[in-house]
């Protein structure tokens, strides 16, 4: 057995090198993802392991998360206490066992925190699962919850399901209606060209999401008279029908759902509602156990103006989608367009509203576009909700529809005192140090991870948020906290590095633009902090305060028009993107109109990087060669100081990178004097800024080497 992790209360608890996910064993083995249940005294744990397995993929997309619910025995019943989540778990795929470690984040506090400690940062999960050959039953998992510095709880958990939730579904129907039929994805003409053929019904649609629906076989057919004399169903009538016909119904949270195939909703014919999750607060605002049932309206769906005239397979698809969609509401999923994601291809969107949501163009019908791209899935956020969110948020009869307040809160930054005492400390800062950023200037920050302990520590060498181990939070001038989301996610095997005692790791992070657009458009004060979690350690940084200046002139105000566009954002984020013509043109305009700004220098940097390298335009089918002379001009501008400034417009790491590239270009162009002068100036500048001596020494050595070469 080769390993093992070093999760200890004294800190520095990252696993040893080689413990990363991705090391695959060769022999066939039982998959380990699924639900595990175990007991420790009067406590019970339901654990969900959701990992990318080295063996052939399972029936659902893995999310690389671990989550669980804890229960306490009260009388003869298990009372729910809390739920937790482990993001970015470390997985060691050994030959005889799999070891998973990670830091637990609580949806609610797991235990009362001792004075001076914070719950969320103290609990570490370690799971050990012996490897079983495929023909043998799956081995139980040993699950240890390590309470930082105090004690551990150990649960021996049996694997009870390959899925993450198990729900019993009872379907009844009204006389004259039909149950949804299974349909094959190839039976419809409008579909993604590469969509494989598979049969879908409600059960399989949810299994693909990692949720096991058990369909009860006691279908009941009853008369529409229960809907009253108008034969259309109100929410109260539907709820009443559920109480009378749902054989498993109890007024409490339980993993059981009821679906009624009904005729028309009461708003018919004024509104064509095809389904409803009726057990919500508009029926009874004080109902303590909502979301237990849904209904779909078969007679409405059969209308010629709805789906009655469609080919049978398309009708079946739409019928199925309505059932999956309404049951999704019962599991507390909202519409995609109510979450600002109108272009989602999820079951939870409305095909005809795609991709506009509430902002409809006249006469719009996005149905064809939606189905041409839809792969019959929930989106990733919904999968995370269904599989891993706090129990009461998901379970039918749990929290109110739309109550998602148990989500993990944004972690608070650490105080400087906490950082000073931590064995491993994470800092967010600006280098050169500055508080004020010009309006529209790209904000970059420097991250520093420092080993403050007396011994070396193994750490993942991934401080960039694109790697997924580090999250950056921003509090904007209005006080709202947002998670910075990078444009790209880097997948792949993690790398670790040994950080000797007293040593530091650094990274420069560009924060101005990301998946949600420009993050610093508004003038005012911002706070920025980072959270770094992997392999049993969770670090919170200090909060950095910066201020974005108000535009000084009307001209500067105009700069926003030229800068804050998605193409420009991409060019700045990627430090050059020659294929984005519009973005490059707009930024060129900024450089010409506002040459003295820090933004202009950053744009020169992007153009310089772009021109220094060849660019393969796969769309146009051509390669644009490198343009070193143009790159030199741009980079010279980028590293030059703005007028009256004593420091570069770029942060130290970015400035150093630009100097390195410019130096290489000078050397390639056989301009040693300019190369030496660049290095000498940079040495002088970095010395003034008290940059690390080894960086300065390296620059000085290179300058000296040029000198020696010349003298020879």
């Amino acid at each position, binding site marked *: 057995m080769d390993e093992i992790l070093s999760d200890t209360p004294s800190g520095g608890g990252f696993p040893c090198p080689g413990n990363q996910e991705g090391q695959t064993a060769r022999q066939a083995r039982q998959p380990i993802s699924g639900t595990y249940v175990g007991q420790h005294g009067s406590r019970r744990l339901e654990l969900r392991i959701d990992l990318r397995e080295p063996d052939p993929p399972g029936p659902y997309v893995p999310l690389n998360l671990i989550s669980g619910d804890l229960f306490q025995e009260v009388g003869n019943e298990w009372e729910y206490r809390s739920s937790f989540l482990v993001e970015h778990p470390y997985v060691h795929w050994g030959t005889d066992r799999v070891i998973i470690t990670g830091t637990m984040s609580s949806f609610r506090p797991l235990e009362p925190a001792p004075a001076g400690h914070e719950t969320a940062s103290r609990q570490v999960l370690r799971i050990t699962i012996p490897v079983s050959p495929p023909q043998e039953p799956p081995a139980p998992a040993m699950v240890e919850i390590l309470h930082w510095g105090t004690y551990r709880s150990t649960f021996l958990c049996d694997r009870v399901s390959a899925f993450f939730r198990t729900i019993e579904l009872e379907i009844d129907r009204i006389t004259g209606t039909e149950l949804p039929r299974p349909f094959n994805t190839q039976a419809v003409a409008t579909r993604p060209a590469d969509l494989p053929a598979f049969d879908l019904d409600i059960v399989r649609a949810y299994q693909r999401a990692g949720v096991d629906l058990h369909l009860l076989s006691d279908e009941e057919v009853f008369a529409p008279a229960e809907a009253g004399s108008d034969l259309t169903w109100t929410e109260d009538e539907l709820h009443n029908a559920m109480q009378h016909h749902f054989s498993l119904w109890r007024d409490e949270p339980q993993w059981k759902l009821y679906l009624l195939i009904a005729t028309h909703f009461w708003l018919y014919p*004024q509104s064509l509602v095809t389904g409803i999750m009726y057990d919500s607060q508009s029926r009874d605002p004080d109902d303590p156990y909502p979301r237990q049932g849904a209904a779909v309206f078969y007679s409405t769906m059969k209308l010629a103006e709805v789906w009655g005239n469609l080919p049978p397979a398309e009708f079946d698809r739409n019928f199925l989608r309505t059932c999956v969609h309404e049951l999704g509401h019962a599991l507390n999923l909202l519409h995609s367009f109510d979450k600002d994601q109108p272009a989602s291809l999820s079951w939870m969107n409305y095909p*005809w509203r795609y991709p506009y949501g*509430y*902002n409809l163009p006249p006469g*719009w019908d996005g149905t064809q576009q939606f189905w041409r791209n839809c792969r019959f899935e929930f989106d990733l956020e919904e999968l995370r909700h269904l599989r891993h969110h706090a129990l009461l948020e998901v379970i039918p009869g749990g929290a109110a*529809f*739309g109550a998602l307040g148990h989500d993990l809160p944004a972690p608070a930054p650490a105080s400087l005192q906490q950082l000073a005492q931590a064995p491993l400390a994470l800092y967010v800062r600006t280098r050169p140090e500055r508080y004020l950023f010009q309006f529209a200037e790209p904000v970059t920050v420097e991250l520093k991870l420092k080993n403050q302990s007396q011994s070396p520590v193994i750490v993942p060498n991934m401080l960039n948020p694109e790697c997924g181990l580090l999250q950056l939070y921003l509090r904007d001038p209005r006080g709202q906290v947002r998670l910075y989301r990078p444009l790209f996610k880097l997948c792949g095997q993690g790398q670790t590095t040994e950080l000797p005692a007293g040593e530091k790791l650094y990274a420069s992070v560009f924060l101005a633009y990301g998946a949600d657009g420009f993050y610093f458009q508004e003038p005012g004060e911002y706070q920025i902090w980072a959270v770094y979690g992997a392999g049993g350690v969770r670090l919170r940084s200090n909060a950095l305060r910066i201020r974005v200046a108000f535009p000084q002139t009307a001209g500067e105000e105009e700069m926003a028009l030229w800068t804050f566009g998605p193409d420009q954002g991409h060019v700045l984020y990627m430090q050059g993107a020659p294929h984005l013509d519009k973005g490059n043109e707009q930024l060129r305009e900024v450089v010409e109109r506002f040459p003295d700004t820090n933004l202009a220098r950053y744009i020169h940097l992007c153009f310089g990087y772009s021109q220094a390298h060849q660019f393969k335009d796969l769309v146009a089918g051509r390669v644009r060669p490198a343009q070193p002379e143009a790159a030199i001009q741009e980079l010279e501008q980028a590293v030059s100081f703005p007028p009256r400034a004593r420091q570069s417009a770029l942060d130290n790491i970015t400035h150093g990178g630009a100097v390195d590239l410019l130096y290489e270009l000078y050397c390639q162009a056989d301009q040693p004097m300019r190369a030496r002068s660049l290095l000498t100036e940079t040495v002088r500048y970095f010395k003034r800024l008290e940059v690390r001596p080894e960086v300065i020494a390296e620059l000085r050595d290179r300058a000296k080497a040029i000198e020696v070469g010349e003298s020879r």
Partner: protein
Amino acid sequence: MGMEESPLKIELSSGKGPRQSVDEPLELSVRITNVSDRPVWVVGVLPGSEGLRYPQYRAEIEGPSGPVELRLPEGLDYARGLQPEDFVRLAPGESFDPQRGKGFIPIQQLAWFKAPEPGRYRLRLRFDATAEDPRRWLGQTLVRDRGRVEALLKQVPKIAVQSNTLEIEFLDRETGALLPRSGAVGADEEERGRGD
């Protein structure tokens, strides 16, 4: 409170004037003005305001061939919960656009409407806040501060108000003609009189 005593006035106007090409989107502005001498609380257009929940903002459109069907392809199956910030206090004489700001959305029937044929159309908007039962207002998802929302709801006058009737001529894109011309089914009386 009867409609003639309404403290609110609703005006519908077209940003493109009385004529536009048949394939151009409508640019309608809605203004709600407090014409009383007291402050009035109102709620703007919310998801579901086309029928699922209150307040309702329902459009009526009559085209050259008669009333135009304004049913959306698929009705909403839930509307988000009413929140304290959805309430707008209008001082006497003050106006607001119920489609903009806060969590308000465009009136779905009007945003989606496309004139099916050239000709003269008459558009009208009905604002309906008559439901006394708070459940008809709350929507389906969680209301964060229900006590406050219900207190604010009590202050909203339970009235219905009709807007002015807006006439827009939708012209044929290519010929610029207003088709069909005189004698069109559904043309209003005034127009018919002139045609005779």
